[in-house]
């Protein structure tokens, strides 16, 4: 993603923020849509488009869980493991998903298809145990079979055209 593309994305919303620093987070999210994470080149492009240093941009990006500064799989699966989900079997769900995609707990599968992470409360405790694919709607309550079906459908889908994490 180039600085020019990011500037074009920011152009229609610039006037909504009296301080242009507010554009950094939207710019980072937009830059992440291309590869699903933020390589150095993307950080540099955000810095150029917003007028802040790359060091500052990285300091912001590194604060937020859903901005990835390391490569992740084509799909990020977040299994909520906070209390309400734990009481309904989230730890077992996490282990089951890991076994399905072939990771040892959290991590990225060997084929680069999936990254599995345990998430803190996803705001869907009525659907416990639940998981979220990228930032799609939270899915649950999930049996292990239902989780397998979700993963199977994702395998069939292939890579998304843009990543919304």
């Amino acid at each position, binding site marked *: 993603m180039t600085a020019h593309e990011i500037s074009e994305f920011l152009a229609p*919303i610039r006037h*909504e*923020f*009296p*301080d242009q*620093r*507010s*554009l*950094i*987070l*939207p710019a*980072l*999210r937009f830059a992440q849509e291309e590869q699903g994470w933020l390589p150095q080149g993307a950080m540099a492009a955000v810095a150029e488009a917003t007028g802040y240093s790359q060091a500052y941009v990285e*300091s*912001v990006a590194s*604060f*937020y*869980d*859903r*901005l990835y500064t390391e490569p992740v799989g084509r799909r990020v699966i*977040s299994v909520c*493991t*906070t*209390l*309400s989900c*734990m*009481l*309904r*079997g*989230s*730890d*077992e769900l996490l282990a089951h998903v890991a076994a399905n995609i072939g990771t040892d707990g959290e991590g990225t599968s060997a084929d680069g298809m999936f990254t599995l992470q345990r*998430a*803190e*409360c*996803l*705001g*869907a*405790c*009525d659907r*416990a*145990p639940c998981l*979220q694919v*990228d*930032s*799609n*709607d*939270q899915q649950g*309550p*999930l*049996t292990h079979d239902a989780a397998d079906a979700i993963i199977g459908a994702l395998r069939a889908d292939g890579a998304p055209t843009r990543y*919304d*994490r």
Partner: protein
Amino acid sequence: MPQLNSVYRHREFQDLLTLSGYERAGGWNGLKATLEMTPDDALYAFHRSGLRGRGGAGFPMGRKASFLPVDSGKPTYVVCNADESEPGTFKDREILDKNPFQLIEGVAIASYGVGCERAYIYVRGEYGHQWDVLERAIAECRAAGHLGPDAFGPGAAFDITLYRGAGAYICGEETALLESLEGKRGQPRLKPPYPAVAGLYDCPTLINNVETLAALPPIMHRGADWYSAIGPEKSPGTKIFSVSGHVLKPGNYEIVMGETTLRDLIFNLAGGLRDGREFKACWPGGSSVPVLTAEHLDTPLDYESLASAGSFLGSGGCIVMDDSGCIVRASWRLAHFYRHESCGKCTPCREGTGWLEKILGRMVHGEGRLEDLAMLESLFGRISGRTLCALADGAVAPVQSALELFRDDFERVIEQGGSPVPEPMGVINA
């Protein structure tokens, strides 16, 4: 056991995801009534309604709005906190999912009252679906002129900007949210100054939770007196409780404050427990509040009654655990949450939440010692009340109360050499 869907209008009317559907359900009547008043009268109506902040702190909304200086010479901002992340809380998600126009109308009403021309709604990063719903609703409002250059009358502009977080519980803390919205790391600010005086971009700012703002349209349409007459004098109105954990019908329930007990909420509305299980504990207001036991089940659900019982109404996220659960394991899981979400700015929180998790973890895994209980107790006062924001207090409250109320359980887990992993409740179709 009165339920009253005032914020959850979508449970009474169909088709609230379209502007025309919302209009058929009485949408914009609250804003119309507001625009016929002076801004001062609108503020006075907020105040008289008795509405209190629904995000967790329960501060009177009208009073908060009245703190904004009128002569600062700077623009004034309204910020809606849609960073719902408190464990056990999913009430705002349903408003965003199913009744977005009522939130937009509420934001507009508050903005008229405090003289704001551009409001911001900060949506948690994980709420991608909810973001899409809200984005479509705002586009529809702009096309219809409800937002834009003449929103509040000819030449009286008002618009809303959506802003997306990126995964950080701390951004639900109001000053951390403002930092994040200004393009910074989401770390809380020293208060005072409070946001009312120096908030977003150092300007006077009213910041309120989704449920608080979505409560305004019916209040302004039906009148502050209508609202203040619902429920107890100090906690009027309706409140949405999210019930989760070991109940048969987890979900959101909007109830009249003070007229429903914790027992009614859990055992009637939320379907109660599985056969053969006994109630063990609940965290009634999200996870950042002291835990309650079976002794407290007859407590009415309002701010004062829950405080008298030793806990807080908080966000209304009621997490229920039956006797299959282990209070030590539950406390450890919550301690993990706060350790993970501590922003690291204040040492007592950054270090203290780590110690809480570590000590509870070794108890759960069979490496605890009886001296650990005294060590835990010595930590509480060194963490709580010593930080810029309430995250640290929230980390201590559930653990400290659990140790006070269930000390025998802690001792047994240590003596037995750990907390056995319980059979999870799993998926139940109630």
